[in-house]
């Protein structure tokens, strides 16, 4: 097992001063870790992955596999196993031939190859599929062949480029559990790219949230969810209400803000963010932490219900709290009284212990 280090890696595709596709990314993937690059399309996550695979060389910066500098190493010398978004299975080869390809390149003996291919196919629950043609397989089966092909060579790192995006929702959830199980068993250092935050949260040891080529935050799923570094991360991970509120008092790690309803509340600001009285703070509150109360309750934020959405586990109620706030507030309540309906006046309460001040 090795770790993977990216040091100030940048990638520009055009020489003239256009924005970099990847801009000064530094991160370390610990040995055996399942690390995810998460971000909207065009944020540079796939470009970063492709630099680790060796399909692009960085314009600046270095990439290390353990002690080895692989920045400019050819892709076929890197010993990475990659699962492509569209699987990239060789259409003119059978399932077994696909899986055996990397072993043949590595001059593994025929007997060993056969044994390891069979083992890899068993591992992904495809025993007996070896002689099938690729176009005879379903999407989910192709996905597993791709995974087997990448893992059978016992790569130094496993690279996965949105491998689940071509599967339907149910299969996606099953497959992500499978991928994680197989990765844990093999202990391969893995880099996973996705735009699906739920997938990232469910699978990863750590996540790097990216935007416009830059890393916004690196942390465990819990950290990026509960302690977002900035408004972008707060909004991108799950649903989040981000309110711009005037600062009334400021301490080292806590900031007092005034609420639209006239109340005051103290929110956590990990390093103060340099905010002082009179500034405006961005306060993030998760829907499940906002409490729906009677509009008569003192100091409640009052507003009008503009949407009620039943999702099964909870009901999302969207409330327009008027000017001075950053749009609507969504409340995810487990028990919503049946009588709450669009157009009703309601009150909202924000629990101080769950409020988190974010950078813009």
């Amino acid at each position, binding site marked *: 097992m090795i770790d993977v280090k990216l040091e100030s890696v940048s990638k520009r595709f055009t020489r003239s001063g256009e924005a970099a596709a990847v801009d000064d990314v530094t991160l370390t993937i610990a040995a055996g870790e399942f690390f995810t690059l998460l971000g909207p399309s065009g944020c540079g996550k796939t470009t970063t992955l492709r630099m680790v695979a060796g399909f692009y060389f960085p314009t600046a910066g270095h990439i290390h596999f353990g002690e080895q500098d692989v920045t400019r190493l050819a892709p076929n010398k890197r010993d990475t196993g*990659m699962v492509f978004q569209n699987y990239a299975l060789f259409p003119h080869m059978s399932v077994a031939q696909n899986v055996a390809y990397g072993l043949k390149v590595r001059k593994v003996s025929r007997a060993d190859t056969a044994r390891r291919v069979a083992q890899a196919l068993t591992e992904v629950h495809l025993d007996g599929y070896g002689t099938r043609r690729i176009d005879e397989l379903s999407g989910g089966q192709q996905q597993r062949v791709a995974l087997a092909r990448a893992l059978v060579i016992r790569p130094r790192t496993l690279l996965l480029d949105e491998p689940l995006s071509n599967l339907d929702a149910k299969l996606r959830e099953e497959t992500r559990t499978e991928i994680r199980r197989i990765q844990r068993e093999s202990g391969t250092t893995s880099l996973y790219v996705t735009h699906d935050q739920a997938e990232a949260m469910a699978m990863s040891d750590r996540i790097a949230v990216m935007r416009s080529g830059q890393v916004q935050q690196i942390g465990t799923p819990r950290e990026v969810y509960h302690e977002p570094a900035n408004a972008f991360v707060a909004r991108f991970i799950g649903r989040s209400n981000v309110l711009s509120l005037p600062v009334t008092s400021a301490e080292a790690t806590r900031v007092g803000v005034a609420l639209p309803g006239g109340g005051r509340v103290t929110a956590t600001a990990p390093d103060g963010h340099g905010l002082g009285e009179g500034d405006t703070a961005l306060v993030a509150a998760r829907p499940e932490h906002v409490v729906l109360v009677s509009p008569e309750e003192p100091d409640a934020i009052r507003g009008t219900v503009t949407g009620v959405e039943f999702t099964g586990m909870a009901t999302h109620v969207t409330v327009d709290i008027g000017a001075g706030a950053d749009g609507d507030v969504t409340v995810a309540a487990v028990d919503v009284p049946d009588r709450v309906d669009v157009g009703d006046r309601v009150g909202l309460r924000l629990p101080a212990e769950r409020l988190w001040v974010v950078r813009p």
Partner: protein
Amino acid sequence: MTAVSSTVPSRRGEWARRLRGGASAAWFPYLLVAPLVLILWGYVVQPMLATFAESVSDDGTANYTQFLTSSGVARTSLITSLVISAASVLLCGVVGVAMAFLLKRFSFAGRRLIEAFILVPAALPPLIGAISFQLLYSEIGILPRGLQQLLGTAQPVLAFDGIAGVLVVHTFTMYPFFYLAASAALAGFDPSIEEAAYNLGAGRIRVWRTVLLPMLTPALVSASLLVFMTSLASYTAPLLFGVDQTMTMQIYINRTNGDLPMASTYAAVLGLVSIAFLLLMRWYEGRRSYLSQSKGVSAQRREIANPIGRWLAPVASVLAALVLLAPVATIALVAFSADGSWTTEVIPSAYTMDNFVTIFSEPRAFEPILNSLKMSVLATAGCVVVGVLIAYAVRRLKFVGRSLLDVGVMIAWALPGTVVAINLISAFSTGNGFSFGQALIGTFWILPLAYFVRFLPLVFRASSASLALIDPSLEEAARNLGASWWRAFLSITVRLMLPGVIVGALLAFVHGVGEFVASVLIYTSSTTPISVAINNRMYSFEIGTAAAYGMLQVVLIFVVMWFSGRLEGGGRAASRGAEQWTN
């Protein structure tokens, strides 16, 4: 008064109801298809059978046994034709695939220059194309004579004649089949498949051997079949380079010697071989191909890093562009040369505008131009009506025998021009039902009919390609909004097909104006088309005048190519679809 006004709308409603119901009724396709089948039967299939009947009319099967005896012209011709075709496949394959890889996979100075001209030699009409290569590379050609003068030798240097000359023409005019097929395959297949191989540790050579070549195979096999068929049908190249013992030349020689049964025998054999190849090709293309879609990451061209290569690339590109443009340039140069002024010099010694004045002002010289335009317009009109309807029927209607209709059109495409001519001679030297009881041979009408048969597949292909881009639900949407079948068909489907149909019609028209192969077997002195006039002028050493006619054809072709390229998306797809099948 009231009674009349109330019955008219109801009668109209009745008709509308019938038409609407009719369009979706099970019998409707057959009503549309029946006349189309009749046309294909009457002018494509039935003449072919007539040729077969003609070939056994005098001596039974004796003509055919000639192909089996060990010596003799028949057997030699068949073998020569097959050998030339096989060699053409090899040469075109090497040139075409190399060009595709060079241009699609590498980035170097001058790449765009080559790409701009790469299809020029193949775009020339068959006769004028072959003549230009003769004027360039044969014993009397510019290059061998130029080298002779340069090196001071007694004989022209590097002169191609005979089979070698034929192969030069074939290579230059047919390598685009490989080039286009290989570049489409390279552009179509998913770069991540290649990346997956690199990722698994394969080096460049191994990726070539185990991934790229196997995945190109379907495209290469199709291109091989196409080149083989086209070479087999090739007639002008053997004619100009004096290779008498090929199938097409034997058809021509036997016909001009008046031995129609023997000419028919050759035509029947060549026709059967061509149709066999057509069926082989259809069978092969029905199998899987490896095109797939992928997300944004596209294959990037590799920069040539080697300093010598970098320096050499622009020089080689300019040279290649010169070679590609040389045939057209030669025709243009010769078109301005005075007739009889070019004997042993490297290039003609005297220049004049007279050739163009002659062909436009002298009534006898202008007549072929008029003939060609008239006959091509007539043939094109027929091709458009029949071609569009067949395309619609084959793509959109469900009926028994649909693929037979498709095959019927494609047979017209697969048959060499010489065979089409012999078929029409066999069928219409006396009157029959399809010629309304008139003998057509020796009349004006036989030529437009031959053009119609030969170029119907072009319009069909172009229409079919643009129809493939039109979502059938558009027509359904129109009908859902209340349009009748006819209205939906005309206002939506035909309107959207229009660019494709126009491209197909223009192609049919220029091919008609350039047609030589069938014309030369069936023209009369009053219906001489341009290409035959060119051929006759060449024989009487009026090379300048011949080239001037040729320039007209060339200019017309480039105008049409330019115009088709400018038509919006549908037109471009259609011209690709049609050109793929041009020979």
